[in-house]
């Protein structure tokens, strides 16, 4: 059977979501953002919420996310996405409101907004991309940078006496009363991507069911910031990130 005979509409098993438009993404080759964008698009499409989803894009690499997903978007000031999302969800309780933030946005500049939105139990879902670095602005040290990890602003490695310890925002979120679902996932293999998709779906459903705040952390790579090839970055993440940021559900309130 030739390739032409197989490539027919009735044999289709996987294509990118129709919510994801044809604009070429500005991310570096192999960036985890692309995979998570795909998952968000697929989940919204499967839930049939295309007309009712409102995303809050952060400041960081994902700042142009509104160029790629054909849903409603609101751009927030740096770190203030959970505050904006709280307002939108209170005004439009029937909308699916989610924020998409990096570690610099959520764990550094927006720590206060994030913690208070989660503590108030706002019915929003937060997708937290943790790649242990500020990817957009040249790869400087973030609060989540691992001890000993070299970045543009700590070329000799993160020193705990000088820079303190990496911040585990997801563990902090799990201790708050307002959160209903707190999990840490990754998107480096097919199995991990499937699990991450389920986690995002659950977070979105919790938000629509009014159960409280959900936080889905995705441990990601920044291969250009880490100065590695995409495949090597995935391997480095498995060896170095996962021991400090173990995957799994931290809190799942039924």
């Amino acid at each position, binding site marked *: 059977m030739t390739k032409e005979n197989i490539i027919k509409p009735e*044999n289709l098993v996987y294509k990118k979501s129709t919510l994801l438009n044809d604009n070429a993404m500005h991310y570096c080759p192999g960036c985890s953002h692309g995979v998570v964008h795909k998952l968000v698009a697929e989940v919204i499409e499967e839930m049939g919420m295309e007309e009712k989803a409102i995303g809050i894009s952060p400041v960081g690499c994902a700042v142009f996310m509104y160029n790629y997903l054909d849903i409603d978007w609101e751009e927030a000031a740096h770190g203030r996405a959970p505050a904006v999302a709280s307002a939108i969800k209170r005004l439009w309780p029937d909308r699916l409101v989610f924020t998409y933030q990096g570690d610099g946005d959520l764990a550094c500049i927006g720590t206060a907004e994030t913690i208070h939105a989660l503590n108030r139990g706002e019915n929003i879902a937060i997708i937290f991309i943790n790649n242990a670095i500020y990817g957009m602005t040249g790869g400087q040290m973030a609060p989540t940078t691992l001890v000993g990890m070299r970045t543009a602003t700590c070329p000799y490695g993160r020193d705990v006496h000088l820079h303190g310890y990496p911040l585990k925002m997801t563990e902090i979120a799990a201790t708050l009363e307002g959160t209903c679902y707190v999990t840490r996932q990754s998107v480096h293999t097919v199995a991990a991507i499937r699990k991450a998709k389920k986690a995002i779906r659950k977070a979105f459903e919790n938000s629509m069911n009014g159960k409280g705040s959900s936080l889905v952390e995705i441990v990601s790579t920044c291969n250009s910031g880490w100065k590695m090839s995409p495949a090597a970055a995935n391997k480095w993440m498995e060896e170095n990130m996962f021991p400090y940021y173990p995957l799994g559900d931290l809190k799942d309130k039924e």
Partner: protein
Amino acid sequence: MATIKGAIVVDTERCKGCSLCVVACPLNILALTQKEVNKKGYPYASQIEEDKCNGCSSCAIVCPDGCITVYKTKL
């Protein structure tokens, strides 16, 4: 015995040559082009062994840019 045949279509202009699909393919039948590049100058993913694909979609699921479409049929 029914055999499953798959085929992929790569959007070569969208592909950035990150090679994550090459690593993810369980049958190792994907590779980046050696000489050809797309308009942006990236080598792109292509199937090197034509009839071995079983349409498992691993390459398409890991692709960060959503450039791969997968088809599958039973013979």
